[in-house]
């Protein structure tokens, strides 16, 4: 079943005469992980943020529809949208350390959300919070709950963020480069964790990344973005077996292989 369908989405930044996202179409099935891949400035993050209607203040959605369970998110009032954020659609940001409020202990930040969205009392929130942290593989959750973000490592913080994101059983998680700030081993942990959460909660995930290897590992389907457009969208295996668009080919070839000497990366169209 189609959970989210983005139709002909166009986003423009004030003072620019072109669309940063220019007529993007894609759908996300239930419990599917869709990868949005592309170079910096391709419009991946903006597309992701537009689904939550949290564009930077100078960004405007100038056309298209974003249908979530049949309702156009762009037609909702800000109040209705706020009820959807966190509960049905939520996001994981790039930098886990700066995504947590440095002024509060982990427990205070987590419990706020549980109280607001699930109406839990302090004690219930605590039990649930411990369970959530155990689920994302944090040893000694009671200790971590008492810590401040700066006392935790990047991987720990990102796991806390994932726990927070999945706390209200959302139907869709927009993960904007959730592993970019982490080292490779932690990346693998986080990616596996997200897969596991998908299995368990039947959540759809939009996984935004510029890392093709990572995308091939986690995504069911991949959409390749370039200059605000989706140039190719296919199931992961097919994309890697038979890339059609020259840009996809360039992206694939830009990944260096161990043992291969590369002096200069190929540019598009000069294969």
């Amino acid at each position: 079943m189609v959970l989210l369908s983005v139709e002909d989405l166009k986003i423009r930044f004030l003072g620019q005469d072109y669309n940063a996202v220019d007529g993007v179409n894609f759908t996300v099935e239930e419990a599917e992980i869709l990868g949005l891949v592309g170079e910096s400035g391709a419009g991946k993050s903006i597309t992701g943020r537009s689904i939550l209607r949290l564009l930077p203040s100078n960004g405007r959605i100038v056309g298209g529809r974003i249908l979530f369970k049949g309702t156009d998110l762009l037609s909702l009032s800000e109040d209705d949208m706020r009820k959807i954020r966190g509960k049905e659609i939520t996001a994981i940001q790039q930098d886990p350390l700066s995504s947590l409020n440095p002024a509060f202990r982990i427990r205070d930040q987590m419990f706020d959300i549980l109280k607001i969205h699930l109406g839990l009392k302090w004690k219930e929130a605590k039990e649930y919070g411990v369970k959530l942290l155990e689920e994302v593989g944090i040893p000694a959750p009671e200790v971590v709950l008492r810590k401040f973000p700066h006392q935790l490592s990047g991987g720990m913080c990102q796991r806390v963020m994932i726990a927070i994101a999945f706390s209200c059983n959302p139907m869709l998680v927009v993960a904007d480069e959730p592993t970019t700030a982490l080292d490779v081993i932690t990346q693998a942990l986080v990616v596996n964790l997200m897969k596991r959460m998908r299995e368990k909660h039947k959540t759809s995930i939009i996984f935004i990344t510029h890392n093709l290897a990572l995308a091939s590992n986690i995504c069911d389907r991949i959409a390749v973005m370039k200059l605000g457009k989706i140039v190719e969208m296919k199931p992961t295996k097919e994309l890697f077996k038979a890339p059609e668009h020259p840009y996809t080919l360039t992206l694939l070839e830009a990944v260096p292989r161990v043992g291969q000497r590369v002096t200069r990366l190929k540019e598009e169209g000069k294969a």
Partner: protein
Amino acid sequence: MLDLEQVNRRLTTARGVFSLLTSSKKILFGIIILLVLIAIGLLAPWLSPFDPNEQTLGKAYLPPFGFNGGDSKYLLGTDSLGRDILSRFIHGASVAVYVSVVATILTAAIGVPLGVTSGYLRGKFDEAVMRAVDIWMSFPPVLLAITLISILGTGLNNVIIAIVIADWTRFTRVIRSEVLNIRERDFVLAAKSIGFSPLQIMRHEVLPNVVPLLSIIATLEMSVAITVEVLLSYAGLGVKADTPSWGSMIADGLSYFRLNPWGMFIPLVATIVVILGLNILGDGLREKLDPRLTLTR
């Protein structure tokens, strides 16, 4: 811009706060002066040997004890009406504490909410607040305070009202500019994406993160409040005549300067030391809490 991670490392635990306060000589110096002032101010009724307004005309113009003609009953001597200078000095300290603390709390109570909301919401509201601040700041603050006193009349609480009305812009401006920076941070975006309302974001995400900056402005505001009170009282526009204030003591002392200079010197030196202490405290806090300054040394 303040480095929030670094700052909060310091401010979120009691041990951190203690180590912050003892980490620099400037902060320590300022804190000690502030604590001594507050202690004297709060304990004034028990510390002062005489009623500050009790006149003994036969014992006027006495120098401090130990000088030629000094009296052991009047440790710091007496003024033109034979009032004990030590007692007046002690009660003057409690006036200074009262004015600085209350005026600072009230200016913060007006300035901080305005600064946070205008910085976070932006748009027309921000525009309106900032233009009001601009217009307000085009008046010289002391002149504004004098004008206000001439409307309100003298008295301790009117002095405080005048300071608050003349000085709320300090908090609004500085807090707003810090909020402009905080609102773009990832944790605010994260809060939005889990469905926090603007009010919840301002209270839970933004406000706690301006506390370090707030502590710096508050110490400076305290010193401004004391200065303005002393200034107004010196000009006879401050507290009522029966309230002992360092400003009015300086003004009195000036009139009988040749007969007993101590009446002027003591409150004058006290004022200077307190203002200096508060400014050094604010300076030290800024050095510790603002990484741009710590990097340059």
